[in-house]
């Protein structure tokens, strides 16, 4: 009997199917649809499937492909192979349609006039569990299932309805539509071909429906992670050997491809930026959560699509050619908002931050393990499998039951804490940051690099001392932020606060108590220190606050003492495990997962190249060096911004060692000290040119740590203990932090007691040194007390956290009594201690001034009288730039053409000729001159600014910190005959130097006059005799400004008359004046340190700085070293591999057989060793 049913061809794509395949074939054989043909496409299975198919379904056709080409590509082959079919039913090799499924699908296709029809997909083993009933998608291409995982089928989804995506596995597609769309996208090897096809079908006006009456069982071997994707399909440089692309990565990249391909121009321009923002946030969250697979997937998606943008453009044109529905109409079919963001938010609220990532990580880990097993079973060597990075899961210790805090509570706590900080900083975050103290705006991002690289800095009267890498770091951050230097400043300032809190949480994590970590992190945020640093404009203190907990973490891990002892295993590859176990205190310490060890196993199993194993082996053997490098890099990043951080690191290391006097374990704790010293050496090596520049200052090198301030301004012992060295938290309530930190000493046992003791040792050491420095008892060593208080705050808040852990663990067996009372008191104290910070948060700017001297003195920049310098006098804490000591707590610094920017924050340690400015001021203070202006004139000093506050003092508006100058300074400046007070405000007095000489000036005519004027009288230290001229006349008569240009340049052009050109920059020997005929004008010294050039003919000249070879060599050294260290730390193969290969050759030459390292050297059976490779 002839049937009128449309012919349907079931296309089954198979690749090494498991034993279920026969059941799959059987299900097609049992279909009640008469016009069904089955075509099996063998996608390069290891064994030919023809026999298996013939055994079960003899009527089926089999086509074998020798090379795997992916699902989409192989499915497209059906277009050439089949003729006359009305529908294609694309199926995986792990589905089994129910007997009536196909005829119900076809029936629904006709009834709904659908181009694509999807069945209800149910579980293979449990058909009552729903897998898919169609899928939805949002505007970013994120696919959302319409059913919950493992949702039981009660018939709740049995209505036929339109869907956006017919999930792959079993999909009925009308042949003419399939032909019109050009089939599947062959670039999509897996994960996402259904979305791509369906989206294009939607654009083409086709209807996609789900027919729940038709049911199909599905094993989900690939998507469920049970089966690995053929690795040959991924050999498109999509991922590297170390981090192969994951299914998630495939999904993400294909989603993005669909978006880029299917949207029209308007919607593409509208949606893609939103995707960028969402992906950026997702990346950051994933990194914070340690979810590296997700982070890598996001990055991979963009990288892959950017690489194939040309192909995507072509495909987009094809899609647009078939467009029947506008994007607006297509959008109606999509979900609103971001499905992924909504889903994540729901999970965070339900399970907490870590909980929201836990399932994903666990599944990834399981998938990785399974994939490894599959690969190993298959005997495929050296080929990566779609596994996740082994670094991600298992990084956390096993939590103690009592220390567990629900994710919702933790999330709520952090949200509240963050809200307090944000509210307290709201005016600063939303507005611009006032320029005061060390908070001065950065120059253009390119200028930061230039200042770092060029080898000359205008600070003082000019110096060739190597610049601090801080400029380069700021430039890098600014570059990453697309040149937004204002944002860069905010990131550097405010980023320290959450960074510190995060570090504190991680510092406590090994103790296994989420509550302790939480409390310590919040307490660290509540300490007034960072907010005082904001109020006082102390960049260095903020940096050390942010980095302090991380430094402590490195030092603590190095001791190998429990619970950090387990981390020592990381370094040793298990060699120290026994040692750590010797600790009696380690009995009650929660065990850590041996992350690195297992990671090493996994990577070895994944087939890491032998060179990498060599590198890792080398690193493992030199664990001390590795620890030094890690901490050294961190220390270097701190030191470039605040050199005193080097002292802090060593001090903390020494304090940990000294704690052994009471707590014992000297042999372990002394490691922290050695590590601190070693890391300091590493940091010095990383910044070697700058360090050489500092050390070349001789005895003055110590001033790199800070400029002495008046001892009368020293903080008292109590103030230090309360961390109240500023306007924030200046309340007796802040004693509560120290009080609460005593709790673990009273209650703690084992590790908690010992580490609390070490924390107190650190805090006492920092407090003591800060106190001694304040009193001036440590000589010229002058470190900002806030910098020293930062590690003390970290130690005290860690002790507070340990108190919580002690309460949880050590009070379990105690009967109710005084211990509980003490705990209560500590808890109340901690709560009370946070009150000052909370109250200070209300105004929204942490007492930071609203007005600054940059505004007040902005008129300086408008001067058109030629280049000039400003001499700043005041307490070092008031000045906006790096300064030198002038004695008696007075500091001095210069700027050019007005107020300075951040590039002046770090000057050369040795003042060089600039010291003459201080000498002149000293003479004025001694009453030895009343012509200070004339003495400063050769340096181009036009204004002398005396600062007594960090910002203008405006009654009832702002009361910034005030730092008085020595009492004799103001009278001395007042009585100078050539300094005219021209601007006075509370906190600042500006004197106009009526005798000033432009930085670059010329005297026309004979040079005799100039020579006489600029000649340095014997024994005068370069000072000019000013008695011959009354005040108000320049010390060099007839001098006019020439070679004008922006400040701090290294090249000036301009017309000059015939005569003499005076240039007040140092070192004079590095500057050359090129005349109009291209020759260098002869140079003679003037004023002892500056230069004068004889110009024979008037004309256009160029003044140019000529640096020597050391600056570029130093730059090259630093760039190479930092890149190398960064590459090693992030284990980039392309750089690490040659080094490792070199190490291999060296070992081979020495013919030394290295001892196996447990864990690290355990290779999977059958995999050749690296010696075997050779």
């Amino acid at each position: 009997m002839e049937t009128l049913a449309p012919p349907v061809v079931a296309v089954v794509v198979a690749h090494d199917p498991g034993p279920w395949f026969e059941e799959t074939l059987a299900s097609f054989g049992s279909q009640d649809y008469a016009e069904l043909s089955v075509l099996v496409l063998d996608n390069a299975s290891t064994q030919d499937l023809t026999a298996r198919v013939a055994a079960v379904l003899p009527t089926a056709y089999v086509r074998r492909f020798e090379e795997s080409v992916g699902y989409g590509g192989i499915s497209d082959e059906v277009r050439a192979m089949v003729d006359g079919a009305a529908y294609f039913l694309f199926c995986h090799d792990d589905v089994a349609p129910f007997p009536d499924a196909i005829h119900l699908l076809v029936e629904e296709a006709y009834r709904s006039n659908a181009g694509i029809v999807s069945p209800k997909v149910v579980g293979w083993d449990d058909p009552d569990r729903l897998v898919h009933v169609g899928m939805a998608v949002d505007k970013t291409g994120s696919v959302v299932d319409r059913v919950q995982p493992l949702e039981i089928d009660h018939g709740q989804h049995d209505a036929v309805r339109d869907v956006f995506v017919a999930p792959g596995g079993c999909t009925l597609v009308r042949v003419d539509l399939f032909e019109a769309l050009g089939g599947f996208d062959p670039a999509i090897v897996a994960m996402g071909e259904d979305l791509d096809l369906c989206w294009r079908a939607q654009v083409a006006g086709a209807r996609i429906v789900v027919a729940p009456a038709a049911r199909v069982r599905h094993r989900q071997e690939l998507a469920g992670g049970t089966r690995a994707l053929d690795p040959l399909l991924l050999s498109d440089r999509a991922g590297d050997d170390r981090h192969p692309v994951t299914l998630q990565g495939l999904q993400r990249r294909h989603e993005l491809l669909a978006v880029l391909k299917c949207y029209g121009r308007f919607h593409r321009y509208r949606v893609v930026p939103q995707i960028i923002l969402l992906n950026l946030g997702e990346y950051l969250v994933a990194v914070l959560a340690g979810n590296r697979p997700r982070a890598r997937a996001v990055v991979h998606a963009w990288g892959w699509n950017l690489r194939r943008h040309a192909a995507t453009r072509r495909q987009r044109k094809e899609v647009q050619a078939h467009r029947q529905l506008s994007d607006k109409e297509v959008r109606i079919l999509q979900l609103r908002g971001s499905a992924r963001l909504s889903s994540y938010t729901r999970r965070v609220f339900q399970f907490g931050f870590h909980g929201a990532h836990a399932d994903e990580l666990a599944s990834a880990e399981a998938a990785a393990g399974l994939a490894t097993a599959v690969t190993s079973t298959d005997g495929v060597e050296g080929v990566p499998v779609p596994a996740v990075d082994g670094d991600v899961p298992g990084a956390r210790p096993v939590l103690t039951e009592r220390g567990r805090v629900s994710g919702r509570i933790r999330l709520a706590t952090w949200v509240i804490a963050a809200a307090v900080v944000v509210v307290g900083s709201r005016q600063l975050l939303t507005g611009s940051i006032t320029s005061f103290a060390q908070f001065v705006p950065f120059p253009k991002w390119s200028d930061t690099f230039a200042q770092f690289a060029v080898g000359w800095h205008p600070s003082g009267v000019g110096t060739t001392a190597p610049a601090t890498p801080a400029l380069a770091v700021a430039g890098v951050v600014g570059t990453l932020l697309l040149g937004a230097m204002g944002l860069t400043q905010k990131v550097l300032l405010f980023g320290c606060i959450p960074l510190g809190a995060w570090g504190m949480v991680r510092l406590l994590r090994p103790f296994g108590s989420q509550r302790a970590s939480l409390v310590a992190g919040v307490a660290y945020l509540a300490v007034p220190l960072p907010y005082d640093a904001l109020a006082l404009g102390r960049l260095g203190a903020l940096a050390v606050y942010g980095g302090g907990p991380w430094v402590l973490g490195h030092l603590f891990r190095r001791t190998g003492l429990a619970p950090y002892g387990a981390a020592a295993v990381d370094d040793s590859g298990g060699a120290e495990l026994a040692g750590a176990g010797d600790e009696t205190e380690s009995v009650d310490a929660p065990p850590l997962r041996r992350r690195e060890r297992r990671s090493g196993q996994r990577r070895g199993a994944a087939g890491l190249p032998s060179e990498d194993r060599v590198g890792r082996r080398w690193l493992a053997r030199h664990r001390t060096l590795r620890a030094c490098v890690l901490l050294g890099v961190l220390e270097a990043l701190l030191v470039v911004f605040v050199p005193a951080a080097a002292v802090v690191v060593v001090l903390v290391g020494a304090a940990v060692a000294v704690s052994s006097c009471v707590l014992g374990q000297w042999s372990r704790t002394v490691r922290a000290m050695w590590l601190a010293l070693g890391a300091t050496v590493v940091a010095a090596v990383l910044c070697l040119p700058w360090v050489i520049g500092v050390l070349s200052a001789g005895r003055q090198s110590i001033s790199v740590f800070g400029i002495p301030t008046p001892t009368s301004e020293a903080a008292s012992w109590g103030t230090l203990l309360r961390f109240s060295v500023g306007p924030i938290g200046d309340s007796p309530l802040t004693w509560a932090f120290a009080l609460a930190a005593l709790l673990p000493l009273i209650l703690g046992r084992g590790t908690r007691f010992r580490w609390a003791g070490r924390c107190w040792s650190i805090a006492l050491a920092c407090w003591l040194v800060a106190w001694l420095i304040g009193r001036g008892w440590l000589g010229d060593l002058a470190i900002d007390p806030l910098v020293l208080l930062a590690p003390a705050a970290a130690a005290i808040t860690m002790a507070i956290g340990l108190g919580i852990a002690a309460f949880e663990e050590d009070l379990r067996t105690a009967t109710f009594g005084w211990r509980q009372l003490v705990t209560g008191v500590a808890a109340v104290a901690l709560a009370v201690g946070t009150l000052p910070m909370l109250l200070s948060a209300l105004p929204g700017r942490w007492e930071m001034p609203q007005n600054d001297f940059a505004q007040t003195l902005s008129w300086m920049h408008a001067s058109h009288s030629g280049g000039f310098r400003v001499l700043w006098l005041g307490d070092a804490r008031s000045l906006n730039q790096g300064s030198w000591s002038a004695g008696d707590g007075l500091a001095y610094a210069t700027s050019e053409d007005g107020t300075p920017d951040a590039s002046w924050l770090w000057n050369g340690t040795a003042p060089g000729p600039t010291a003459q400015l201080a000498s002149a001021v000293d003479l004025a203070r001694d009453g030895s001159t009343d012509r200070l202006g004339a003495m400063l004139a050769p340096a181009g000093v036009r204004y002398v600014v005396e600062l007594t506050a960090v910002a203008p003092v405006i009654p009832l508006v702002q009361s910034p910190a005030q730092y008085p100058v020595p009492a004799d300074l103001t009278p001395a400046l007042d009585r100078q005959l050539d300094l005219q007070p021209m601007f006075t405000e509370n906190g600042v007095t500006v004197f106009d130097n009526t005798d000033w000489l432009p930085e670059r000036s010329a005297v026309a005519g004979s040079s005799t006059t100039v020579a006489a004027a600029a000649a340095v009288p014997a024994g005068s230290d370069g000072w000019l005799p000013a008695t011959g001229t009354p005040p108000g006349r320049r010390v060099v008569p007839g001098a006019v400004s020439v070679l004008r240009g922006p400040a701090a340049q290294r090249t000036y052009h301009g017309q000059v008359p015939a005569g003499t050109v005076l240039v007040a920059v140092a070192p004079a020997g590095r500057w050359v004046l090129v005349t109009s005929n291209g020759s260098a004008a002869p140079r003679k010294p003037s004023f002892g340190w500056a230069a004068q050039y004889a110009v024979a003919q008037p004309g256009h000249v160029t003044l140019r700085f000529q640096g020597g070879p050391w600056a570029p060599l130093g730059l090259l050294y630093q760039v190479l070293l930092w890149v190398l260290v960064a590459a090693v730390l992030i284990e980039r193969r392309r750089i690490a591999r040659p080094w490792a290969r070199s190490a291999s050759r060296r070992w081979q030459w020495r013919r030394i057989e290295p001892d196996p390292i447990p864990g690290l050297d355990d290779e999977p059976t059958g995999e050749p060793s690296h010696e075997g490779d050779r």
Partner: protein
Amino acid sequence: MTESMSRRARQQRRPRRPVPGRLVALAGVLLAVVGLGVVNNAVATPTAAPAPWPADGVPIAPAGSFSSSAFCVGGAAGPDGLAGTTLYLTNTSSEAVHGVMTSQVAPGTGSGATSSGTPGAPTTRTVVVPADGQAAVNPGAGLATGDLATWFAFDGGGVAVNQVVSGADGWSTAPCASQTSASWYLAGGSTANGNTLTLDLYNPSSAPSVVDVTFLTPSGVITPADYQGLSVPAGQLVAENIGDFVQGQGDIATEVTAQSGQVVAAQLQQWAGGKTGGIGLSLGSPVTSMAWYFAQSTNTGGAVTFHLANPGSSPVIATLSFGFPVAKAVPVMLSIPPQSVATYVTSSGRLPGQTPFSTVVRSNGALVVSRTVEARSGASTPPKWGGSRGATTLATRWLVPAPGVSGAPGTSGATVDSLAVSDPGPLAARVVVTEAVTGKQVAVFTVAPASLVVLGPSTISGLRAFGVTSSVPVTVEEDSGPTGAPGVVSSTGMSFPS
């Protein structure tokens, strides 16, 4: 019972073992915290160094200075000047000091003034002061008649400058200022009984200065509108006749405050001629003080009057202590209302006559104190009135210039009559007096606490400048003749910075 419950029960039964080191750690922490707190409180917190006392505006620049200046204000130039001026330069350093002298006549104060009131051109000439030597210059030479200001710009330090003014009613001497200041205070002026009081304001800087001038009188505060915002051009002298606005006041204190810039202020008092004629040149004090020192005063039948001015806004209680070589008098207390003046006359039988005494004025608020001396009615040698400012500083090293140098006296017959060293402190002072030029030791003596020693003409006569060094801070004053009475022409010493 589960296994965990049984384990917990066992743990509860087990006694808690003490943690080794707990007591030591706790004690160590508490000891460190409390102990350092105690030390912190026990060790005195360093205090900021006080502002250096401005030394009456006349400190001598150190010998090794890069540059120094002297400003002589208040004399007159020209043959018709009321008070011809001679300046004396004493170099205390061992190297010759070169300098430039710039003299300027105030506009509208003499026949040399231009019709428009603009000043004439200043004269400039170089001066050289030999090492450990002296020099005398007449700044008015070549200038038109008028009030005169002179500025010395030296290319070194160690030079002290004083001036002598002389006229028909007598003569007077005063040190020249070595500093400018934004505020100046003067006391003891008079416009009563035909007396003339001239205020000289000199601005040596390169920028104009604007000053406010206020007068405190027994009748109250007088703030003439013309003297508010008074402009003193750069490098110019402004001379104002106080009597134009403050008339008939016998005790006038003057307060000069610069709104911008710095000036030097002095006053020239001319007492009406006849039996009580005289002139007195006084350099202002750049500060008010709660302690004023007068090394020597003597009641000889006339009147020694102390003029106390309180420019502050609160009443001040002042105590006048008098020291004699062998005894002390009962202190006198005066209450001075805010913004007012008070006087204390010592010649009304309250203190012994013919005996020199030192005076220390201490108060609970800042004051300005000066002294005027009136010769007894029968005195014949002019001047018969004189006045001088007290000293606000004590020092261990002083230079006492003479009213002239050998061959160039400030006035005919000028000589140093006496030199007094007063020790207001609690410790005895060992004092050495030497000749400033030759270094020859003149006298060595000890001054008892709260006492004074006066060297008479037998020891210090002539026109010699003296150096005084002391083991403890003292104050020094010289008395010069010829005058109608001791103290009529006197001058405090010029201190060296410590």
